[in-house]
């Protein structure tokens, strides 16, 4: 079964082509990595898949739904963790969970999710009093509160210390083992190598490579990434 299907996707902002003829599919139960330098088109791709923007060309299906036309239904099945998205300072963890749970038809058990994300002790803490790692875990919890079939996690470990990063990786594994398909946006190669079944590397809005990390690794995924994406810097292009 295909969870996400992206076919010849193009999105322009004025003269800039943010996403240029991109195609990939994500299988159900897979952890799929979307890699690329800043400005490569990762976040725009996320916006398009999540139905936040309309594509100029191409076709997207998420769980068989059109993200624009079937937006309402899609948002019951899709959990999204957005980069740099915050919550009101004075909202507590439990209040945020209850609020987001109220949006969904069959929300997850709040206490269980808080325990899984190690936030039980913090449930009455205001958002502004949380550490970076705790905020990040809360953001993941909110992405999972609607029991999504598919989760998009954007730059989930940016700013976390090494221990918190490894804990988060373990958590992603656990979530996948519960049957959730995951699209992970990252620029950490070790993270992609450790977690992803397959990765797509984007450069200048295009897909530069697609495959299992081991297939792309030459000798490591890090090397492949630098080789594939640094061409943009020197201006040399490979079509």
């Amino acid at each position, binding site marked *: 079964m295909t969870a996400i299907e992206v076919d010849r996707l193009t999105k322009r902002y004025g003269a800039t082509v943010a996403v240029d003829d991109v195609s990939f599919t994500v299988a159900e139960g897979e952890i799929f990595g979307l890699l690329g330098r800043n400005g490569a088109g990762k976040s725009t791709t996320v916006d398009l898949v*999540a*139905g*936040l923007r309309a594509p100029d060309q191409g076709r997207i299906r998420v769980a068989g739904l059109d993200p624009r036309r079937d937006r*309402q239904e899609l*948002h*019951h099945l*899709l959990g*999204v963790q*957005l980069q*740099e*998205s*915050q*919550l*009101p300072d*004075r*909202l507590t963890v439990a*209040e945020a969970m*209850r*609020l*987001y749970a*109220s*949006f*969904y*038809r069959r929300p997850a058990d709040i206490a269980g999710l808080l325990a899984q994300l190690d936030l039980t002790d913090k449930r009455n803490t205001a958002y502004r009093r949380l550490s970076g790692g705790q905020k990040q875990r809360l953001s993941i919890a*909110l992405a999972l509160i*609607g029991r999504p079939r598919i989760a998009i996690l954007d730059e989930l470990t940016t700013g976390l210390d090494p221990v918190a990063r490894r804990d988060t990786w373990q958590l992603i594994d656990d979530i996948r083992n519960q049957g959730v398909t995951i699209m992970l946006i990252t620029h950490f190669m070790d993270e992609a190598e450790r977690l992803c079944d397959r990765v797509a590397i984007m450069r200048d809005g295009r897909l530069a490579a697609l495959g299992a990390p081991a297939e792309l690794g030459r000798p490591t995924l890090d090397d492949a990434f630098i080789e594939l994406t640094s061409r943009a810097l020197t201006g040399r292009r490979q079509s």
Partner: protein
Amino acid sequence: MKMLTLTEAKLLVREPLALFWGLVFPMALLAVMGVSASSIGGVPLVTVYEPIVIAFVGVAFGVQGLPVQVAGYRERRVLRRLATTPAGPLRVIGAQLIVSLTVVLAATIGVLAVGRLGFGVPLPAQPAGFALVVVLSATAMLALGLLIGALAPTARSAGAAGTVLFFPLMYFAGLWTPQLSAATRRIGQFTPLGAANQALRDAMAGGWPHPAALLVLGGCTLACAAAAARFFRWD
């Protein structure tokens, strides 16, 4: 929607500064006027100031409070995050409007109570007309605030715009010079709070508010709300 409204209400209650400025300060200001023995044209100062203070409440929550909230939610990507949920971002704006309107009405009742119980200011002799103007001037200020919030890129710039607007709005309401010259008053009639002040005074004295004042307030509400809807930036 109920949960969102409840959450927004809780968040407002946790903002002591906003509550002080919009709720406590107006009542205190009226009390200060009440203690003063002076009068303007034979009318006690407290009576003159009651409609001005009521106009102030609308500005405090509508033009100063609301835009900062809305722009802050955009800046912190709360609106974008909500756009990925079945609830969508529009409902949180709706919740803020409901909460803001509720506190404006509550503060207005508080001001009337202070005036009546503390200083014997008579309650409006034309209560229906008075209530209509209170509601219309509150919606005018909320719509104006929503427009600022729609356009301002950050909470900081929204706050600055609200503060800049505060002065002309409240000038025509008579905050600094309750007795405006005839010419200024004529200009003021076309500003929302100049119109509101006159209409509130009429209603307090027992008259039905002038249709022109209702038109200015209703027009301001509709024009600002339409512009806000048209130009709203979600991210």
